[in-house]
């Protein structure tokens, strides 16, 4: 055991020495001339290849796309010093406050992104540090052919008739707001008692859940009859199966999440990153993108310019679009969320 400790200490010393050496040599090659490379980290199946190819041709550059599989991947890359590797990283609105406070993102000079004026300010959190890309309503859809009950509120999801019939998105900050809204509380509550009640609600909900994730697959192949999912994903499911409908919620608010681009601290190709942001904010470009990836979009001019198919997409034909809430930073209370979430998943 002693030997192990000695080795560990020796290891730690090598590490700290190495770390000191590393910090002194940040390559400070200020970009006098235009960059020819742009490294983007984002969701897969979220941007049109054709648009990327056009951007590359227009700017005579190479765009390297790599993809995350979890929001946490992006946060891990950002906090570990992502600027060394990436010029643009996609993350969501809920993390912005902490990312700015932690100094992980660069301020974006919006003068260099004139097309960002097309973006509806109502959807723009932390303006100046990010540029919104697409957004997701998290709502309930059901298969009208197989769903045994009518769903007009979150509480309907607890109906015992739905046992093993729900496929839902995952994550503490996606699940708890549903419960909080159902109970009549603030969806971003930090009150421990309210969260305890929400936990009890979710335990009942959990009994009806067949799977967390895979909502479209499960809904279209008949494994479940109800899904809590994003509108863009629902759109694909609806295209496969026309009996899939949006639940007509009456009072409960639904979550609206924003996927946005940030420039990580120390990014090397800021000029090109800004050009890219401006490019995707161009109404015609984004409109084309929406044809391929039918998500909701905060870019009003782009939505206006989008195809009729996009505008008439059944996945966005619901009348409670205004009744939404955003995920907010809950500070220290996040620990309570996570502890309950853990307990929920482990079960008693």
């Amino acid at each position, binding site marked *: 055991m002693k030997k192990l400790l000695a*080795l560990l200490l020796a290891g730690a010393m090598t590490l700290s020495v190495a770390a000191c050496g590393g910090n002194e040599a940040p390559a400070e090659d200020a970009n006098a001339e235009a960059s020819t490379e742009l490294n983007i980290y984002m969701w897969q199946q979220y941007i049109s290849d054709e648009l990327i190819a056009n951007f590359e041709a227009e700017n005579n550059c190479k765009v390297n796309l790599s993809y995350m599989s979890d929001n946490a991947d992006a946060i891990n890359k950002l906090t570990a010093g992502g600027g060394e590797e990436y010029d643009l990283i996609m993350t969501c609105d809920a993390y912005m406050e902490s990312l700015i406070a932690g100094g992980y993102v660069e301020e974006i000079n919006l003068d260099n992104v004139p097309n960002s004026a097309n973006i509806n300010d109502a959807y723009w959190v932390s303006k100046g540090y990010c540029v919104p890309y697409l957004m997701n309503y998290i709502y309930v859809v059901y298969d009208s052919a197989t769903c045994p009950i009518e769903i007009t509120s979150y509480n309907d999801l607890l109906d015992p008739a739905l046992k093993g019939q729900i496929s839902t998105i995952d994550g503490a900050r996606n699940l708890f707001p549903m419960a909080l809204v159902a109970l009549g509380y603030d969806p971003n509550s930090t009150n421990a008692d309210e969260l305890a009640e929400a936990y009890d609600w979710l335990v009942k909900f959990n009994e009806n859940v067949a799977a967390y994730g895979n909502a479209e697959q499960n809904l279209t*192949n008949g494994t479940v009859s109800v899904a809590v999912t994003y509108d863009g994903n629902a759109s694909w499911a609806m295209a*496969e199966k026309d009996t899939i409908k949006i639940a007509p919620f009456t009072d409960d608010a639904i979550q609206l999440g924003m996927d946005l681009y940030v420039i990580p601290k120390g990014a090397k190709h800021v000029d090109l990153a800004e050009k890219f942001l401006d490019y995707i904010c161009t109404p015609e470009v984004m409109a084309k993108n929406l044809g391929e990836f039918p998500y909701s979009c905060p870019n009003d001019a782009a939505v206006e310019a989008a195809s009729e198919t996009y505008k008439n997409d059944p996945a966005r034909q619901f009348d409670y679009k205004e009744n939404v809430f955003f995920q907010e930073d809950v500070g220290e209370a996040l620990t309570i969320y996570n502890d309950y979430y853990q307990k929920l998943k482990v079960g008693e």
Partner: protein
Amino acid sequence: MALTRREKKERRINILSNIYAFLVYAVLYIPVAVMIAFSFNNQRYNYYWNGFTTQWYGKLFSNSALINSLWYSIIIAILSTIISVIIGTIGALGLKKYEFKGKKVINNMLYIPIIVPEIVLAVALLIIFMKVGLSLGMGSILIGHCTFCIPYAVVTIKGRISGDNDTLEEASMDLGANRIQTFLRVTLPTIFPGVMSAAFLSFTLSFDDVVMSNMLAGARQSTLPVLILSMNKSGITPDVNALTTIMVLVIVTAMILNNIIQRSLKKKKGKI
């Protein structure tokens, strides 16, 4: 001609064991068969069977991201297999043969990458690489992969080394062979099946790894499993199935070709 009881029994055992092996293979190949079938599925994402199409094979060839990531994965798998097997073989022999300070610690450290969920080592390595200023890319992925391949290699090869190796080696040395000759002519042949198993394991582990690669991949290129993992949010597109189908086909064809060549070589030898 009447068979003796022993021959009959052996024959029966032979048939039974072939059936058993067939069943095991069957279970392992079921998912592969399903995967191949769904490469012909007429659907944007593989939700369920929706009719036959071959369009995905056409689309596959225009999907350069997918093909590039496959090459990248193959190169990484080959390199990490070579590194791991060399270090693992030498290391297994060294750890078996010699006594030195801290050997116990090293022996135990070998278990760590096997025990700890990969994500833990991956996160730790990511932070350390970032602190040291090592840029992410093939180098970092290789280090990550070798870190979990080496222990597997050592454990597998160690199982193959036994006490009588020493006597053989000593005999070889007594007969005047030097260490390297002894290693190549005596030690290596006796442990070769272990080395082969280790190579197979390392290649498989590296080629299929997703957690370590996901954490340590750079911005320019990621591996095929990472690409597939990132599809999980929306669904896996059938062109990935098409790619996998072609991979399986290539491997099987290579095996058959190899078989034919070996057979014809044998025949030629027989004639001469």
